[in-house]
């Protein structure tokens, strides 16, 4: 039998939910409406915008550089799901329950703590032509020292995905650890007594019970990789000659460098639509399964 009076709790639920929803609606949704409006104009940042209908969207899709940008963004989504998510889980699982495990996680967490300037500097050190990576390869006698890591597409996109994984793995590992800590003891003990161990224990018991954390990590990876801007802007600025742009970078350069606010807004709206659609599809399914798969008791501290 569920809780006594659903109506009473609905009012309380709104008292809890209200502030968050209100703040987000006011602060985030109103600028989005404004951006939709701008995407239908030829605004340059000054003066009054002129309505031009869907022209920006047409221009956008006709530009070959935009299509490259779209493809690079797709590579980012796939790459971010494979590397930071996959390795994050690995690191979390390896360190979990290990004596001193939380200290072994520290090297993976420090990269996330670095300032943006430090990140930009270190990756330029490593990946510039004749930089630290090339110098190391030369020293070790490994071929490839002449590679222009950041100038050849799609190599530069792959390199940047690996660079951003340096920070992302630690964060994902931490989120997975929180999930692992919430897995109840009893079912696991029971399964172990039944003879399950290692890989089988992981796939049949741990992985399903990790779903709430997995949903967070994957859901955020999708959203953040679609939005990718900072690391690309720092390392290649979307270049050379726009070959490594992502949708976030295209949006930014159109708006802030070319003074084409309308075009940039159109890219932003398209990006938003894609992200919302992907999130709805993924989250709807994951959260329903997760909530319905029964709730165990949280392990005691």
């Amino acid at each position, binding site marked *: 039998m*569920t*809780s006594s009076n659903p109506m009473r*709790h609905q009012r*309380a*639920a709104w008292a*809890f*939910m209200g*502030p*968050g*929803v209100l*703040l*987000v*609606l006011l*602060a985030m949704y109103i*600028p989005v409406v*404004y951006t939709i409006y701008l995407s239908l104009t030829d605004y340059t940042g000054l003066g009054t915008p002129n309505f031009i209908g869907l022209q920006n969207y047409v221009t956008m899709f006709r530009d070959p550089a935009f299509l490259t940008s779209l493809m690079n963004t797709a590579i980012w989504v796939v790459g971010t799901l494979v590397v930071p998510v996959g390795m994050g889980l690995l690191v979390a699982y*390896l360190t*979990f*329950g*290990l004596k001193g*495990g939380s200290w072994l*996680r520290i*090297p*993976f967490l*420090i990269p*996330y*703590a*670095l*300032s*943006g*300037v*430090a990140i930009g*500097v*270190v990756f330029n*050190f*490593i990946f510039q032509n*004749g930089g*630290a990576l090339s110098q190391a390869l030369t020293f070790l006698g490994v071929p490839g020292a002449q590679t222009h890591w950041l100038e050849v597409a799609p190599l530069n996109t792959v390199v940047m995905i690996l660079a951003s994984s340096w920070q992302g793995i630690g964060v994902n590992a931490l989120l997975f650890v*929180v999930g*692992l*800590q*919430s897995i*109840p*003891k009893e079912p*696991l003990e029971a399964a172990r007594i039944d003879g399950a161990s*290692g890989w089988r224990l992981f796939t049949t018991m741990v992985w399903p019970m990790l779903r*709430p954390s997995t949903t967070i990590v994957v*859901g*955020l990876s999708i959203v953040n990789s679609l939005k990718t801007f900072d690391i690309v802007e720092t390392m290649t600025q979307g270049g050379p000659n726009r070959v490594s742009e992502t949708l976030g970078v295209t*949006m*930014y350069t159109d708006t802030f460098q070319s003074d084409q606010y309308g075009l940039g807004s159109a890219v932003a709206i398209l990006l*938003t639509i894609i992200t*919302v659609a992907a*999130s*709805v599809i993924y989250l709807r399914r994951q959260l329903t399964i*997760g909530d319905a798969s029964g*709730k165990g*008791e*949280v*392990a005691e501290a």
Partner: protein
Amino acid sequence: MISRIVRYVVLGLLGIFWLLPIYLLLANASKSNGSFSGTQLWSAGNFADFWSNVIAVFTTTDIGSGLGASTIYAIVAPVIAVVLGAFVGFAVIVLKLKHGFVWFFVVFCGTVFPIQMMVIPWFSFSANTGLYDTIVGMIIIYSIVALPFSAFVMRNFFSGISESVFEASVVDGANVWQIFRRIYLPMSVSALVVVFILQATWVWNDFLLSLILTQSTARPVMPLLNALQGTEGGGPGYTVTLTAALLVSLPTAALFLFTQRFFQKGLALGQY
């Protein structure tokens, strides 16, 4: 036994590999502007040069003036976001808000929209309402930006707690607020800490929002740091800038170090 040794070795090697870029940063921050060379990136600097760079950071740049504001933002805003996010998770999962997924998704989408496009409307609003360049204004905006992530994590964390916990508390006569404060919050400490440290780090490292929405009074560290990288003339020099970049990363690194105890619990899985 063997698997344990393997784990230590693998993690140890990976850890060292992970720290190599940090070595590059430290080594080159320990050089003077004159001795830094683009072709000798792996060579170690020396402590004397590093120390004089540190002194230069505090005497020739204005980085120090932003530390106070950064600290306030990085503590207050994530706390607000954590609390509001926990509220959202509680309402949707425990109190079973009608159409809970939809309302949750509305909050979640706050993290979908690209911040770069929102910054100019936010500037207009803050300039016309007097919130521009104020500590309060920045706290508000940082809290709102940090909220969707917090709501996501807390919602999912609460979904892993059995319904019977809530039902039993209701039967015991506790009101909703007491249940939230005395039962659900203490249960979710590690989730709350994770949200706090990740968002505090994000707020501390934010550059674009604080560049546009502050001017002098409320300006935190990052815009001041980035301003050290000039394109035409001026600036304190490359290695001093690098040293500054490392120094401002110390608080966030310390935050991760000192909250490790919340993530040490690992007895549920035992040995396998």
